[in-house]
């Protein structure tokens, strides 16, 4: 009998990455780049000023959305297919622990997300300074890894594709807009009544459970310069903490589930 592999998670991660590279993901990523460049080029033709800033900001915002959508859709579809094909049962029949398998999948999806972020950052070199773009790229990579972790957790826990996609999209959109929602709820024009106060408390409570995605991968960095290293580190460490939370929640659910 052959020796057990020392790092089964790495092997699972490798196969997960190979699956991503052989799927439609690279083609969809290339199509996204072409579409973003085309749209931003068109918009720059109708701008009367700040054409370069318009191209950089719109292209960046579009590619960010594409990266997040593509990685979430890929993770959910891959996890659902594996469950439907009984590939999960087959994999767990091998000498590999559940946590090692889950971590391997997460690592593989994280690598796919990082590659996607790298591909999407390259066209922005046309308009942005490399130093500013580097911060945006690192941030986008961290964001796609976080979204991959969220999609894996929801796909694994909810088992239904539509529910998993909806939950991932909901978490992501709330993460990007919660600061604006809090600002609106706490504004001077907000009602001072008991329901108004309750709504503010509810919004603040929800905000405690969400990642601050509005603070990362900002298009402004491409136009007005990257944040300081300490600010970037602070924002990314917030994402890192949430990534750990999602990974642990996924491991907890995966460890106690009956297959």
């Amino acid at each position: 009998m052959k020796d057990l592999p020392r790092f089964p998670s790495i092997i699972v991660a490798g196969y997960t990455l190979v699956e991503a590279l052989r799927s439609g993901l690279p083609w969809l990523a290339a199509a996204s780049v072409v579409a973003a460049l085309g749209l931003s080029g068109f918009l720059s033709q109708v701008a009367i000023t700040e054409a370069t800033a318009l191209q950089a900001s719109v292209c960046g915002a579009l590619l960010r959305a594409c990266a997040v959508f593509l990685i979430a859709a890929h993770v959910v579809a891959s996890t659902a297919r594996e469950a439907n094909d009984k590939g999960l049962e087959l994999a767990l029949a091998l000498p590999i622990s559940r946590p090692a398998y889950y971590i391997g999948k997460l690592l593989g999806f994280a690598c796919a997300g990082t590659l996607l972020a790298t591909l999407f950052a390259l066209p922005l070199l046309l308009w942005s300074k490399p130093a500013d773009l580097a911060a945006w790229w690192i941030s986008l990579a961290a964001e796609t890894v976080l979204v991959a972790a969220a999609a894996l957790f929801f796909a694994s826990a909810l088992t239904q594709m539509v529910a998993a996609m909806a939950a991932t999209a909901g978490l992501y959109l709330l993460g990007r807009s919660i600061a604006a929602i809090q600002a609106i709820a706490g504004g001077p024009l907000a009602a001072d009544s008991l329901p108004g106060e309750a709504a503010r408390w509810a919004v603040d409570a929800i905000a405690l459970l969400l990642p601050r995605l509005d603070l990362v991968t900002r298009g402004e960095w491409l136009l007005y310069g990257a944040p300081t290293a300490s600010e970037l580190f602070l924002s990314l460490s917030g994402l890192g903490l949430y990534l750990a939370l999602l990974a642990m929640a996924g491991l907890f659910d995966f460890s106690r589930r009956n297959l």
Partner: protein
Amino acid sequence: MTGFWSGRERPLAAVPAWIALLLALALAGQVFSQFARRVGAPSAAELPHAPSARALRLASLGEPAALARLAMIWLQAFDSGGANTVPYQQLDYPRVVAWLRAILATDPRSGYPLFAAARVYAENADPAKARLVCEFIFEEFAADPNRRWPALAHAALLAKHRLHDLPLARRYAAAIGRLATDESIPLWARQMEIFILEDMNELDAAKVMLGGLLATGRIRDPEEQRFLQRRLDELESRLKGANRR
């Protein structure tokens, strides 16, 4: 593992002819119907009320820089085409100013809203509308004078030559001299009040201003250069026509 592009389909001949025919007909029908009802630029009446800056920030999902510029492209389409001989004349200006204010608040570092305000909307032939936009520029100037002075400088020229309101032009010029203190700002701008009082016609003043902006590297965007040069040419031909009459 099956590749993404690997052929798992039957040959085209396997599709019944009536299905292919109906598909082609449906495609042609769709293209024809869309071609028949092509939409032009939206009319002035279609411009909705401006949202608050907070609502715009919420809608931007953390990308205010991109949203602000997209909103400007969208706003400048209203009343810009169709049967219009002169664009932007029919717009409800208080509504336009509210939009410009909200967009500027969404990304205060963008120069687009004030550039469009000064170079597009303030050049309205209706003095009341032009005055409204000039006042908007003046109000917003104080928040970031070293970045926003070119818009107010143009508003000062408009106040002198189009509105024929010298006190207003001097008020704007004095504000630039008092608040725009950055070293990179050209001398003529910091001494705008003297520039306004000089006996210079609109074309010469506009040429000095554009030349100064180009020389100091303020205008780096090629689209902006082209737009300003076109405006200068239009001004020149209009003044020539007026002199001939």
